[in-house]
């Protein structure tokens, strides 16, 4: 089996999974930020309505 070929195959699949993993991490971090902001604003609105 051609080793150079296998090396490029490894590079190809690694690159694909790196791009997909980076995107998933970006989604997760954005999701956490949105959840935090949503909870903060809900608490603020509740406080203002009580006051």
């Amino acid at each position, binding site marked *: *089996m*051609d080793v*150079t*070929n*296998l090396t*490029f*195959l490894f*590079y*190809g*699949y690694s*690159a*694909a999974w790196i*791009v*997909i993993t980076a*995107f*998933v991490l970006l*989604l997760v971090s*954005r*999701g956490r930020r*949105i*959840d935090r*902001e*949503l909870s903060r*604003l*809900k608490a*603020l*609105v509740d406080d*203002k*309505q009580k006051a």
Partner: protein
Amino acid sequence: MREKAIWALGLLGAVVMIYNLHTVFLNLPDEAMQGAIYRIIFIHVPAAISAQVFFTVSLVASILFLVKKNHAFDAVAVSCIEVGTMLVLVNLVTGSIWGKSQWGIWWAWDLRMTSQLMCFLLYLGYLVVRPAIAEPTQRATMSAFIAIFAYADIPLVDLAIRLPNVRTQHPGAVLETGQMAPMFIPPFLVGILAVLLISTALVLVRLHQETSQREIDSLRRELHAL
């Protein structure tokens, strides 16, 4: 319930993907001309096909937004475009590595590759321009026009390897022309299914975030009024 459905879809996609990678790497023989590297087709093409599916959904959603002015359609469009753009990047990167292995060059400015790069840049432009507009309806309207304009590139990507007088470095449509050996077709189709399942789960996660973002905008307005 909704979160569980997204998890189930993503998990199903991951199982199908692992099963397919097992088949591709351990059961399929090397290709006669290319050796082992041809296996890149099982991620390279499914990524491109899935991206085109999502761009088509985004086109329909953008048109529906312009007609009905319902922000749910705008949320669908941006979610599909974000995941689609990521998939085009996967397609471009894997294609470039495949090209270096087979042609000795990372890139050729032929119609197929250039139009696919244009596709990536057009949709990247959509994602870059979108946050610059603060007012939600104006942002959604402008985004819908950009999405419709960007989609004009998709037929060019498809036609690039089908037009009779265009010579490209990129090979033709192997499935349509019967150039793919029958044993490679089932894992190729399963690969498309796996990428579609995983990326649909990602679109749904992104859609949920967009809905939460709209809730944040409305809470901010409410807070401002109090």
